[in-house]
């Protein structure tokens, strides 16, 4: 019984499905079991999401109970969660209304993408070295290649833009894809050997 409590048992439970899926990938044996195990992954992910929700409510619950900082906004979180969750099961048309007229504008605007772009362009373009100038040239030609107005001003923008996209960008993206692939395998090796146990949360 004590062995089950050890961390090693959890590492074994991590390594076994991993090796089985790799074995199935290379040999193609036990195909139905492999696809069942992959589906298990997404269903367990659902359960872990419910736990994440519970931990967030604990944080905001104590915040309300202790009347901590901005506790009134924690109340807003609870109210909006309950109304939206109940509406999704009880009355679908209220759910659609909230989705179309409240959640959609929030998701459309909350990340402030448009303004972040402008500040970066306006403030960031102060290049200190020739590398920065190269970066700006690359982005200017890319924007003019993609904007329909670019070729109207000078058709050369499209040809140079395409060249930048096809040669330097292709080379670097290929190299970075290779580097990322190697990084993935390195992480896998560390996890198989039990040196990397982030999933145990320690």
């Amino acid at each position: 019984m004590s062995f089950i409590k050890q961390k090693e048992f959890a590492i074994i439970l991590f390594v076994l499905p991993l090796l089985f899926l790799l074995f199935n990938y290379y040999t193609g044996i036990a195909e139905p079991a492999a696809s069942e195990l992959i589906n298990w992954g997404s269903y367990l992910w659902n359960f872990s999401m419910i736990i994440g929700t519970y931990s967030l409510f604990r944080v905001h619950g104590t915040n309300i109970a202790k009347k901590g900082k901005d506790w009134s906004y924690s109340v807003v979180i609870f109210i909006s969660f309950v109304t939206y969750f109940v509406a999704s099961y009880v009355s679908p048309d209220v759910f659609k209304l909230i989705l179309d007229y409240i959640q959609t504008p929030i998701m459309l605007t909350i990340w402030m993408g448009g303004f972040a772009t402008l500040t970066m362009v306006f403030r960031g373009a102060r290049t200190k070295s020739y590398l920065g100038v190269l970066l700006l040239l690359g982005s200017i030609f890319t924007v003019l290649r993609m904007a329909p107005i670019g070729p109207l001003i000078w058709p050369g923008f499209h040809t140079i833009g395409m060249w930048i996209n096809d040669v330097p960008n292709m080379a670097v993206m290929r190299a970075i894809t290779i580097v990322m692939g190697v990084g993935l395998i390195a992480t896998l090796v560390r996890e198989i050997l039990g040196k990397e146990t982030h999933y145990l949360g320690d």
Partner: protein
Amino acid sequence: MNVVGEFIFAAIILMIWSVLYKNNPFYKLISSMSVGLMLAFWLKGGIDAIIKDVLRPALLDMNLARFAVLVLGVVMFLRFYKGLAFASKWPIAILAGVGTAIATKGAIPTMILSQIKVGSFVSSDILGNVNNVLIWIGVISTLVYFMFSFKHGPVVGGISKIGQVYMMIAFGVIFGQYVYGTSVMAQMLYLLKYPGYYATIIAVLVLAASIVREKNKTKPAEETKA
């Protein structure tokens, strides 16, 4: 055409934009509402999927595999019970194992092997040859830039400097596409259409009022200082 809905749509956009001026209760309200709504949205998706693919097959059709998933899912909730908290790590370990396996098994063929393609240097069209040589040099110099355990002498340093030049142009392409792709067009549409522009007018008035109040608050302070 739900007029009230469209007005609320525009009002929420303006409330979020107000954080550019200063963090204010409007933005905090919307930000916390987004937390609650997003949570409910995700939870409904997750619970529907669990009912659809785990509960119904496990309990109604007695599918043994899905029953095991149900047990593992319930075991995950033991983390709040001191005695059996160690057991709650098992399902998460299995989940992490499956996730790592499918991410890595596809990595070698697509991310590494299919990248080792070199265009011919001696084909008919000259420009194609030059481009292929430049791509080949670019891939090798960028890989050399990402080598850390080799001493950066004159040769290796020079090659990685070439790699840096390639990378800056390529990152310029990524930044250029971000600048082109990200814009406030879709939001503008709603701020200037029929019910939306009332919200815009109200927002401009509120902004002007707060700027004026801000000026009055700081001016008397300066007079006392002078």
